């Protein structure tokens, strides 16, 4: 398949194509992503297509000459975007578009995020003639009407100058992303990739109900994982103590931001979480990313009594994906403002998804709430999943309590909407969540995640020895792409019973995290330090000197965390 661009100076025998994309319910012109295919199989990218940008490791000249960021972004813009899910070359439209096209038959497919059904049509262009096409996109879900707004917490789209704001905002609208977190990426010792001109409130650009916000993926190392900070007022960086994440997270908390871990808090991040979890500095974990879900580390954190929200993000364009493919919805009270949105993330009012929409309630409590019971009793729990059957085939809806599935509804021909209602006996404090799983429909098989597994295994963490088995289906070659969604928990607190952190499951997790910390301390020993510094493919610039300089403080933090977990394992 090839893609060809169409400019305004095409031949006289061309026909004129005028496209208008509207929301079926409101008749408003809306931005969307378009696949335009000529009958020859070539994908067409009109000159009026919106420009798109990305930066995943361009040589960071802008670190020394900031003006280079604007020039690199301007030169790096593109009008076509690779859609790996169906192998096409797509483009973004603001909603109206005029293009000169070669005569012939065309197929057009229009998508806008997850909540609109895909529109599809065919038309013929004749030489010298004009063809007008109005595409009406129909919603199958309208979560913003109920205060739920979609976000991608992990976009590496540079925004070094205000001139890029309108185009990026329209692009995000085309993917139906309401809060786009554009992350500047850090390396050890002050080197920044995907430059953002400002952060948090100072970086805010709002177009209707679309917010662009500068955030950071920093600190970011193979040793302790990739950390994300959203909503901080400034770039937070401690190059001299780059591996002491606690400093960055405390500063984030001081600035009213939220902090969390990218990439499932897997591998090194698992260690980092174990080191600093007792400090209550982490607000979220990205549990849907890189094309698949992974909940193990997050469940462990919840079982230890941490209140951590699930989030999702794409890591676009560092991964072959599209913005918002994996996203999370946040229930915002009142108007969609950055402050309200951050507050809702902090309160855990989220669910993650790559298609299905989830609802969960335990009596009057909703996602992220705490339901206080005066004594042990039965609680009525309701979970519901809705989805677009042309894009997702949800096979299971489950209710999870303390990491264990307690109710399942296996799909049996329902068409895009089913629910579970169960009475759950609750004898002690716990957490409840809903999750959905299945397969994506009409997409190419998923890419192999073997490179990720090999990367993680090279770290030589004892805890990762069974990673391939833990990843299960995600690690199967040529597997269908998974359809997945998971809500944040509802916390059930039963008065007079031990809190989650003091229950047997918490002791189990504390024991395993003690092992993680022991293993990390061993890898920070003199004999293994050089191997850790020379870790291949990490791309984070952590040197032996950095490890040596930060080791004492890191070992102190490890010691403190061990004492904490020891107290959990052997309560007084």
């Amino acid at each position, binding site marked *: 398949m090839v893609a060809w661009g169409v400019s305004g100076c095409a031949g006289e025998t061309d026909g004129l194509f005028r496209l208008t994309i509207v929301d079926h319910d409101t008749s408003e012109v809306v931005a969307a992503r378009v696949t335009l295919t000529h009958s020859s199989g070539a994908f067409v990218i009109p000159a009026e297509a919106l420009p798109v940008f990305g930066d995943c490791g361009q*040589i960071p000249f802008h670190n020394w000459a900031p003006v280079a960021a604007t020039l690199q972004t301007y030169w790096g813009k593109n009008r076509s975007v690779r859609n790996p899910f169906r192998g096409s070359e797509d483009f973004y439209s603001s909603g109206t578009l005029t293009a000169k096209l070669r005569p012939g038959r065309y197929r057009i497919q229009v998508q806008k995020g997850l909540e609109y059904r895909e529109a599809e049509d065919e038309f013929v262009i004749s030489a010298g003639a004009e063809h007008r096409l109005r595409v009406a996109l129909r919603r199958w879900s309208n979560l913003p009407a109920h205060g739920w707004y979609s976000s991608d917490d992990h976009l590496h789209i540079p925004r070094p100058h205000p001139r890029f704001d309108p185009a990026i905002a329209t692009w995000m609208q085309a993917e139906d992303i309401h809060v786009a977190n554009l992350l500047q990426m850090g390396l050890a*010792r002050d*080197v920044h990739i995907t430059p953002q001109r400002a952060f948090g409130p100072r970086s805010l650009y709002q177009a209707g109900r679309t917010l662009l916000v500068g955030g950071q993926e920093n600190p970011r190392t193979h040793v302790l994982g990739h950390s994300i900070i959203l909503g901080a007022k400034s770039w937070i960086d401690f190059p001299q103590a780059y591996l002491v994440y606690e400093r960055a997270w405390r500063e984030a908390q001081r600035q009213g931001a939220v902090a969390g871990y990218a990439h499932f808090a897997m591998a090194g991040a698992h260690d980092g979480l174990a080191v600093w979890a007792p400090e209550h500095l982490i607000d979220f974990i990205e549990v849907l990313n890189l094309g698949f879900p992974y909940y193990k580390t997050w469940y462990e954190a919840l079982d230890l009594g941490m209140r951590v929200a699930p989030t999702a993000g794409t890591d676009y364009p560092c991964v072959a994906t599209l913005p918002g493919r994996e996203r999370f919805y946040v229930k915002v009270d009142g108007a969609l403002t950055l402050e309200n949105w951050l507050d809702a993330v902090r309160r855990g009012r989220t669910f993650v998804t790559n298609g299905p929409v989830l609802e969960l309630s335990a009596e009057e409590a909703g996602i992220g709430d705490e339901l206080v019971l005066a004594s042990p009793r039965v609680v009525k729990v309701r979970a519901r999943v809705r989805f677009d059957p042309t894009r997702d085939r949800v096979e299971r809806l489950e209710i999870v309590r303390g990491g264990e599935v307690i109710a399942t509804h296996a799909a049996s021909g329902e068409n895009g909407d089913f629910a579970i209602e169960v009475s759950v006996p609750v004898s002690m404090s716990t957490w409840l969540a809903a999750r959905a799983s299945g397969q994506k429909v009409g997409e190419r098989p998923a890419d192999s995640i073997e490179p990720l597994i090999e990367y993680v295994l090279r770290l030589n963490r004892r805890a990762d020895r069974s990673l391939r088995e833990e990843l299960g289906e995600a690690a199967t070659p040529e597997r269908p792409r998974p359809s997945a969604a998971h809500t944040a928990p509802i916390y059930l607190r039963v008065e007079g019973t031990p809190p989650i952190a003091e229950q047997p499951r918490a002791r189990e997790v504390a024991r395993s995290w003690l092992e993680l910390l022991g293993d990390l301390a061993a890898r920070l020993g003199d004999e293994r330090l050089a191997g850790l510094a020379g870790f291949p493919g990490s791309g984070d*610039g952590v040197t032996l000197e950095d490890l040596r300089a930060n080791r004492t403080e890191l070992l102190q933090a490890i010691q403190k965390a061990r004492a904490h977990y020891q107290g959990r394992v052997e309560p007084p």
Partner: protein
Amino acid sequence: MVPLWSLPMLAALFVGCAAGLAALRRLGTNRALGDVAVAIRAAVISIAPGVSLYAAAAWSSDGAVWRNAGALCFVAFPLLSAIALSLAAQKRGWRRGSVVGTLLGSGLAVAVVATWVTLYLKGVRGGWTSIEMLVSLASVCVTFTASACLGWWSGRTVRQTNDR
């Protein structure tokens, strides 16, 4: 990431090339040292304010303007060295070397240093030690000087000057 010692190695390479060209052109010692002295001054005039501006950026809350200005000082080196060498030649009555060569040679040095400093993966606030600063600044100064001389001596008339 590139190691620290790679920059002195690059500087040595430029010095070797410049010395080789000087020998090939049979430049007199006076002429060669005179040009080197001018090139060193041009390098210092470019590097000193550049480094000062980067240092100021490290202490500023928004250092973008300072960093851009610092970068400009370094990028201006080819022009500065060409002007300085031309004026010195005029003043001393020596035949001019190659202005185009100087611009190209110095420009190459600036590009090499910019690439090195980017690949060294340290930023303005990136915890430069005294040794690192000393080694890198000295190497940059030597690289700039040698590259300017290399370009200047690439002109064919330089040897005739020596013979006079």
